[in-house]
């Protein structure tokens, strides 16, 4: 049995932003986080396919997504936890990078 969702908000939306906001609202802030996560995976996979090392790519993509999540948080699109998650991911991938990079 699926749950009933009020779709009147969606019918009232006139712009893409309204629609995205509505999606974010009905998914309890998950929509925005998932968009950032999708960006993260796109950046990671495209950079890995270009031949960069996975540990290098992780630092770059998680940092880009951290900055994006700050901007998204500014418009109330993601929760604080998403921002902190990407910050921790950047820090841990930086830690791993320095473990791996030995001169």
């Amino acid at each position, binding site marked *: 049995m699926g749950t009933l969702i009020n779709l009147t908000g969606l019918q009232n939306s006139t712009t893409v932003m309204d629609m995205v906001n509505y999606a974010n609202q009905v998914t309890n802030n998950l929509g925005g986080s998932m968009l950032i996560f999708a960006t993260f995976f796109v950046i990671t996979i495209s950079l890995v396919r270009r031949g960069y090392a996975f540990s290098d790519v992780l630092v770059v993509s998680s940092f880009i997504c951290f900055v994006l999540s700050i901007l998204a*948080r*500014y418009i109330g699109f993601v929760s604080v936890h998403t921002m902190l998650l990407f*910050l921790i991911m950047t820090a841990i991938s*930086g*830690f791993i*990078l320095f473990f791996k990079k030995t001169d």
Partner: protein
Amino acid sequence: MAELLPRHIYYAFIVFVVIIAGGLSMMYNAATTSPSIVLDAGSENTTKSFNNSFNKFTELKASSDQLSDKIGEFSTNPGVFGFLDTLIGTSYNTLKTFYNTIVFVPAAVDGLTESFNIPWWVTTGITIFIFAIITFAIFSVIFQRDI
């Protein structure tokens, strides 16, 4: 993958702490325009508790300063090993001269904060890194192997 040495763990830890401090600093800079960025609507202030749990930056800076003081105090005297002691002592003194030459770098880096508005965590991170590199270089000379 090359050999993993203790100094790489130390460097990695510095990088980890600097990224956390830098990220939180960025978040709080953004929060000056809209305080709701760092506030969590439902529960307690998440970022505040997170910041407390990772508040190691000051400790790291203090221990780095302590290391640099120890380098300054240390002195070698020719001991029972004679030639070997002198050899190590010479290397150590050479490095110590090197250290004295570049010890002004952190002060210069700190000056960057005022001149170019570079964030405090960048300059502190660079300073800690410089001291860590010098310290491990001196350890390597004393123990005659990579540490």
